[in-house]
């Protein structure tokens, strides 16, 4: 039976294209693996803040320890400082508190607190128990000042420069590594320039 003609027709294309047939799907697969691998290292909970390099929103809140006195970021123009949003009910705030106390001791960067949706008595008690790194604490009972700063969890911290512009935002507790690698160099830089 003369059936070799048909077989030859079917066999011919496979030869030169085998390499391509393997390489293309493999290439696509590897590309996908790399894309997804990079994605795994990203943390969707670290939402980048649109307030970086924008002026820190102004507010005037009663102070935690002395409600008769108020605190406003305008008082700190001309200084580089940190605004730390915390609460007595926040567990991870305790982790970062040690780091804040260390930072306060160096005297390199004044830290001001924003007590978020807390009870005044509990906030005061918490600072008494764990130490107080803050020069002053503003009491944001209903959290609306925090919303103005784009706060969506505690703790969060902002580094604000001499002109009152937000230059960096930390989401989550500050680690000793953050202190060493990000905060101290940034503060040095911001203090060096006007």
């Amino acid at each position: 039976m003369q059936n070799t003609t048909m077989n030859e027709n079917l066999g011919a294309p496979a030869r030169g294209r085998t390499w391509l047939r393997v390489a293309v799907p493999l290439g696509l697969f590897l590309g996908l693996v790399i894309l997804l691998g990079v994605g795994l290292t990203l943390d969707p909970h670290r939402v980048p803040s649109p307030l970086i390099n924008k002026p820190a929103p102004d507010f005037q809140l009663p102070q935690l320890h002395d409600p008769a006195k108020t605190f406003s970021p305008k008082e700190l123009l001309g200084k580089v400082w940190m605004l730390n949003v915390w609460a007595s009910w926040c567990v991870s705030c305790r982790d970062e508190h040690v780091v804040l106390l260390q930072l306060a001791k160096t005297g390199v960067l004044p830290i001001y607190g924003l007590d978020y949706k807390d009870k005044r008595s509990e906030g005061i008690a918490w600072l008494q128990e764990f130490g107080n790194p803050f020069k002053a604490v503003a009491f944001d009972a209903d959290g609306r000042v925090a919303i103005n700063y784009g706060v969506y969890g505690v703790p969060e911290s902002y580094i604000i420069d001499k002109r009152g512009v937000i230059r960096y935002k930390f989401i989550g507790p500050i680690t000793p590594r953050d202190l060493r690698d990000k905060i101290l160099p940034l503060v040095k830089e911001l203090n060096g320039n006007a």
Partner: protein
Amino acid sequence: MHRLVLALILVVLGSATVFAKEAPPASSNPRLEKRVMALASQLRCLVCQNETLADSPASLAADLRAEIRQKMEQGESDKQIVDYLVARYGDFVLYRPPLMPTTVLLWFGPLLLAIAGLAWLLYRLMRRHAPDSVPLSDAEHKQAAALLAEQEGGTQ
């Protein structure tokens, strides 16, 4: 023994109702409430990130809904409120990612992949028919006819 276990289960389940709170009173204006929830369902809760501000049980979501409600009461438009939130939380607060150069692939990627897949499938199907259309020569036609005649002769 079984009755005791059953009784205990019922007591535990029953006591759960003690923890259920009365829902916080919605604003006295049901139309406003509807508008608040409509806008809230287009915004993302940043704490429970796959939920909308309308659905999320997080306390931040409740705060932001209250913020939306207050702004609507003050006469702000939906767009003004959305701009206010985006200025503070970024584009991520929009439940549907905005169409921007960086999100074009996100929006059209699946469609493009589907089209590419379909195109490749069609191409493969077309190619499979090609061998069939190889025309037989005259000699091969006669051979085929002879073979077929043989077959029919054989089965009878």
